[in-house]
């Protein structure tokens, strides 16, 4: 047997088929964690090996790939994964959300609403939402099977009793299609509402934990909460200092060692597009504002 030394998108076809089967099963049972035979990838665990495998399995030659890390197209993780697929698949890449057909993401959902021609691939570190409450895998599986999700609310209860409000700010647990409780990966809870009824297919890959799960298009996704402490998306009470957006998720950036800080959109494509359209204050004004303080 002479195996070719090179195959499109790094993984061999049999591996891709195995991953696709897991993806199909995940789509058929929204929110359910499907085990799969995760492969060694040429990058360390925690760098998105799960997401990369899912992307490799669904990528076609005509796809346009966008990779973001914390909303940004130009951080190490995003750049290296994008380069990886340019090298192994030769696909077109983009930083523009609307142009992309496959978007691999770590920790964010793009601000620009997604369409039904797009697939969003999440990198997941810990797929099990019940993990830190119940360490036994046999028990958490049984709890999922029997929809025993009281424990998830114990976590939220603890938050309120300690902090006065639900302090979980990322990886905020959701219930998918009124059945499975799911960890949405460490996206800020600001992004949770975007998962609900989303036209795009959302796939989640956890490489080290060997799990794939999915939210099919137009599926109900509800963030868990209490009647008297309802779910609230959180964002800093500010506008982006570059593009002036008041509806985007903001990063807090420390600009010097005297505590000066600025808020900017974490989604670089969204911010850049808005600035190109003439939104936001000029750079000099921003500088002036800093001097006033």
């Amino acid at each position, binding site marked *: 047997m002479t195996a070719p030394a090179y195959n499109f998108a790094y993984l061999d076809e049999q591996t891709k088929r195995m991953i696709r089967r897991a993806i199909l099963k995940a789509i058929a049972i929204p929110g359910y964690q499907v085990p799969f035979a995760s492969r060694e990838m040429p990058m360390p665990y925690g760098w998105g090996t799960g997401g990369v495998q899912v992307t490799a399995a669904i990528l076609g030659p005509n796809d346009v790939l966008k990779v973001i890390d914390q909303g940004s197209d130009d951080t190490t993780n995003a750049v290296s994964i994008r380069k990886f697929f340019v090298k192994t698949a030769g696909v077109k890449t983009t930083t523009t959300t609307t142009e992309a057909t496959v978007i691999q993401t770590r920790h964010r959902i793009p601000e620009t609403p997604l369409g039904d021609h797009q697939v969003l691939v999440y990198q997941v570190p810990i797929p099990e939402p019940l993990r830190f409450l119940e360490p036994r895998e046999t028990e958490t599986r049984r709890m999922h099977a029997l929809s025993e999700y009281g424990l998830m609310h*114990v976590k939220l*209860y603890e938050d309120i*009793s*300690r902090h006065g409000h639900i302090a979980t700010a990322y990886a905020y647990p959701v219930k998918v299609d009124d059945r499975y409780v799911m960890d949405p990966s460490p996206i800020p809870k600001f992004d949770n509402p975007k998962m609900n009824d989303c036209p795009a297919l959302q796939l989640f890959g956890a490489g080290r934990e060997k799990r794939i799960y999915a939210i099919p298009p137009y599926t109900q996704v509800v963030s868990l909460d*209490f009647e008297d402490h309802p779910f609230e998306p959180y964002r800093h009470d500010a506008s982006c200092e570059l593009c002036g957006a008041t509806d985007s998720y903001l990063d807090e950036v420390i600009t010097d060692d005297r505590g000066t800080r600025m808020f900017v959109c974490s989604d670089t494509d969204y911010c850049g597009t808005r600035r190109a359209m003439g939104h936001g204050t000029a750079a000099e004004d921003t500088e002036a504002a800093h001097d006033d303080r």
Partner: protein
Amino acid sequence: MSALDTEEPLLVADGLTKYYGRQLGCRDASFELYEGEVMAVVGESGSGKSTLLQLLSGQIEPTSGRVLYRMRDGAATDLWSMSEPMRRFLYRTDWGFVHQDPQRGLRMGVSAGGNVGERLMAVGWRNYADIRGVATDWLGRVEIPEDRIDDTPRTYSGGMRQRLQIARNLVTSPRLIFMDEPTGGLDVSVQARLLDLLRRIVSEMRLAAIVVTHDLAVARLLSNRIMVMKGGTVIESGLTDQVLDDPHEPYTQLLVSSILPA
């Protein structure tokens, strides 16, 4: 409560036998437990007390024999013919299980309020203020100061942990509670206080209880009826006072006479 409720037994054990491979755990245990009745199971270690308790509470499947439990709708149902979700639901709502070691019965990293509220949230309570209200009330009933509600059981003393475990189990108003050496490992004054509390709660809530203990004083204080086990079999049973004051079996006589005079 209708007459029927009191006439039908709550729990029926029928020829319960458990072998661990060739090793006998418990042989041919049969009895009936009525609502509001407290039964003590005594015997030395290795006599099959804990096996019996696990059989009765549906944690292990008997080799032969069966356990019938009268559900709230009045139908006596075989534990092992129930579906697993049903059995687990029963375990979380209609039953309680107090472990000897509170670390097994509590979530040590979760606050006392969360520990008590867990069962409520498991049966669908979704109002924080309500859950907290009930938890506060229950902490008061087991004599834990209200201002300790947000502390984890790690910061509690042994007696407080055991009382918290009891509150956690009783919050859904179960009808039957299993206790495995509830006073084990506690010092004497704390034991006395816990027994007082248990006695009060059991009679207030008309709880049926099965208490496994090696301490005859605990059995005498808490229980109406008693079963003495030895080598996996029940050798003597009857009303607690009768058995303890006038034991028939030589082993029971030995057990009773081995108590140090106060």
